[in-house]
């Protein structure tokens, strides 16, 4: 590896934390979705780092599966957002409270 494994993991943690911040602090549903994508990518980065470190292909197979999951999740989530916007005319999560969450 060109850099120590620790640095890859630290970069992954930083990106993951930025994603958590986006989910916690933003009110726009689309930006929350983008932050979830960011978190998934941080996990992918650490998986690739471990895969390089142990010289094993398993981590990269897991990245493949995580990408499949992300594609499915985004498709369903964005469909939910579109149908939600059609019904309530807003994408601000403060106004979407029909479940009293």
């Amino acid at each position, binding site marked *: 590896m060109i850099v120590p494994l620790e640095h890859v993991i630290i970069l992954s943690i930083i990106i993951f934390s930025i994603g958590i911040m986006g989910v916690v602090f933003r009110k726009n549903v689309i930006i929350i979705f983008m932050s979830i994508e960011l978190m998934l990518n941080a996990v992918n980065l650490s998986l690739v*780092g471990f895969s390089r470190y142990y010289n094993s292909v398993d981590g990269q197979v897991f990245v493949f599966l995580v990408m499949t999951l992300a594609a499915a999740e985004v498709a*369903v989530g964005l469909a939910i957002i579109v149908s939600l916007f059609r019904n309530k005319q807003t994408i601000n999560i403060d106004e979407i409270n029909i479940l009293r969450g």
Partner: protein
Amino acid sequence: MTAALFYFIACLTIISALFVVLNRNPVYSAVMLVFCFFSLAALYVLLEAYFVAVLEIIVYAGAIMVLFLFVIMLINVGKEIAATSIIVKAKVLPFVLVVLFSLNIILLILWRNEGLHQSNTISSVGSITAIGQALFTKYLLPFEIASLLLLVALIGTVYLAKKRVS
């Protein structure tokens, strides 16, 4: 030299990720997210995971971001921009918790007693052949389940997004 390149691209990734979260306009956020995906793909190339890098650009920067931009254009975000503010009041606790969480893991990694020994064996881990062989022998069942998951997501999306005819 390549290590310096890695750190440079890592900084670019972090900055673009910050812009994704901090931007007021969702369209700019999407553009910065595309930039973030491209720099992550560059990091994968530097880590010699070529297949994952190509997949990152095709799946994320290609498919998922086009989907995001479509939805942003479908939904009229013009009035949302003015309504949402970046600075949120009274959310100190989650901020502190997230910072403590990440600092905790970083310090745990940096202050371990035994060092991680570097493995120097050259292998063809990043090659498409190796990944394909693992995917179709050892991980055949997860692969098939992933295809089933995509089918279910397809059906669910069509059902959710169609207009209700009453």
